[in-house]
């Protein structure tokens, strides 16, 4: 069976299957109550002076309430739901007195408990325009709605929709950002590599990437100023520029070219990025690297010592007009190259002592993945900053 929904002002029809899919994609069903929605229903019930207000979604054969004011079950049969009429008609529904309305007077919630009389609802749409639910106010006393009241109701519905979409858009952004991290593991012969990037918010400004090179691999770790969505947009740009610049030529020439490309964008955004880029020659263990204000690269030696990688260049986006400087070191058998973001220091006491703790975890082994897991296990449920770890370990 196909139920059609006419789009407002257009002839496009949304099938029930499309509608259901759009609702499922929102990922809102059966989630916990959230203050950002609850404050809207509280405010609406107060302003309209109704006993109840609800944010409801029409799911297959049931109605489910994300937020509700008043003694109302969160779930009921779809066929009994006023909100289903709002969704099907895709328009504001005002029922001043349900007991006098032939469409609703035999509804169990009108005939029986709680003796519903007044209902006003406006559709909630998914980002694609599919009607998925209703924002409504209702109660046991008959009531009329002025034109101003209806405008206000629509404003409330618009607010709810914004909240609904904002989280959906962010979730999608998070998915896209996760997709920008390396998908394939990299295994230069004789090494094992593991990494992880955990944003403090839904998305973040940390990133890492790796690429195979003729004799080994290239690794990049970056940390964009700030957190959240704006940092994530910059992070994606920086990653793209670095991957696009290639790993064949001279590391200084390549980093300089990338920095020049990024400079105007970073300046415009008032942002900067700290970055450590390193290229490994697998056979010799030679690691040529360039640190731009990142300062958190280590070589954890098999002999028990730890070396911090040299850092002298400013972050990308801060052009001091001086040439970039690269260095190199050697990863010997049993040694590990470790790069972290500054969020990792916050997992310890916030000082450089944290790097010693990181080195100790890396030494405990047995492999790169175990060390990454060991460090990430220290992340609190709500980390203050993005946390990223890259570990490249040469087998002993």
């Amino acid at each position: 069976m196909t139920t059609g929904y006419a789009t407002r002002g257009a002839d496009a029809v949304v099938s029930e299957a499309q509608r259901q899919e759009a609702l499922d994609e929102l990922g809102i069903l059966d989630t916990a109550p959230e203050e950002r929605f609850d404050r809207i229903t509280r405010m609406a019930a107060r302003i309209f002076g109704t006993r109840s207000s609800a944010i409801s979604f029409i799911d297959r054969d049931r109605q489910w309430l994300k937020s509700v004011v008043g003694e109302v079950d969160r779930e009921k049969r779809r066929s009994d739901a006023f909100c289903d009429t709002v969704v099907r008609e895709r328009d504001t529904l005002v029922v001043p007195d349900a007991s006098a309305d032939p469409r609703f007077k035999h509804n169990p919630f009108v005939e029986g408990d709680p003796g519903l009389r007044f209902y006003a609802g406006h559709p909630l749409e998914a980002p694609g325009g599919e009607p998925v639910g209703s924002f409504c106010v209702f109660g046991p006393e008959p009531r009329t709605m002025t034109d101003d009241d209806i405008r206000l109701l629509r404003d409330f519905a618009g607010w709810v929709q914004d909240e609904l979409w904002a989280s959906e858009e962010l979730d999608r952004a998070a998915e896209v950002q996760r997709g920008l991290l390396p998908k394939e593991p990299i295994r230069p012969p004789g090494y094992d590599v593991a990494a992880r990037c955990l944003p403090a918010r839904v998305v973040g400004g940390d990133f890492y990437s790796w690429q195979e090179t003729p004799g080994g691999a290239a690794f990049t770790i970056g940390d964009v100023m700030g957190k959240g969505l704006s940092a994530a947009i910059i992070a994606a740009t920086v990653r793209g520029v670095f991957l696009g610049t290639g790993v064949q030529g001279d590391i200084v020439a390549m980093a300089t070219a990338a920095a020049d490309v990024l400079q105007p964008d970073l300046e415009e955004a008032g942002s900067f990025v700290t970055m450590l880029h390193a290229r490994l020659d697998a056979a010799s263990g030679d690691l040529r690297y360039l640190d731009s204000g990142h300062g958190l690269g280590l070589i954890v030696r098999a002999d028990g010592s730890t070396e911090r990688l040299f850092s002298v260049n400013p972050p990308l986006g801060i052009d001091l007009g001086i040439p970039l400087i690269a260095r190199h070191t050697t990863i010997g058998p049993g040694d590990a190259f470790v790069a972290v973001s500054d969020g990792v220091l916050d997992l310890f006491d916030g000082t450089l002592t944290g790097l010693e703790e990181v080195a100790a975890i890396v030494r405990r082994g047995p492999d790169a993945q175990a060390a990454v897991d060991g460090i990430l296990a220290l992340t609190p449920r709500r980390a203050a900053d993005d946390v990223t770890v890259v570990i490249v370990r040469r087998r002993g």
Partner: protein
Amino acid sequence: MEYTVKDLGGGVAVLHLDGRLNMTSAARLREAVTSTVANGHPRIAVDLANVDFMDSSGLGALISGLKTARQAGGDLRIAAPSEQVKLVLQLTNMERVLLAHERAETAFSG
């Protein structure tokens, strides 16, 4: 973060900051520097004695303030950074760009 501006005369002002210099307060610091420069004080000493925490956004605001001051023919100097602030400056190699002075009041004298 709260701030107060003290006019030292000769186009020099001290910006006393109090609180955390992070993503939330960074915009306030940028505005504070811009308006202090616009009010005829292109030489600004930012007193960080009461800033116990600064993140990368805070550093970004200091760097943008430095740019604003220099464009107006002045300079921005910092004073009395905490250990945590010093670490952020060291890691980013910015400690030579934002030289730390002992006291804000004397950052532009001698």
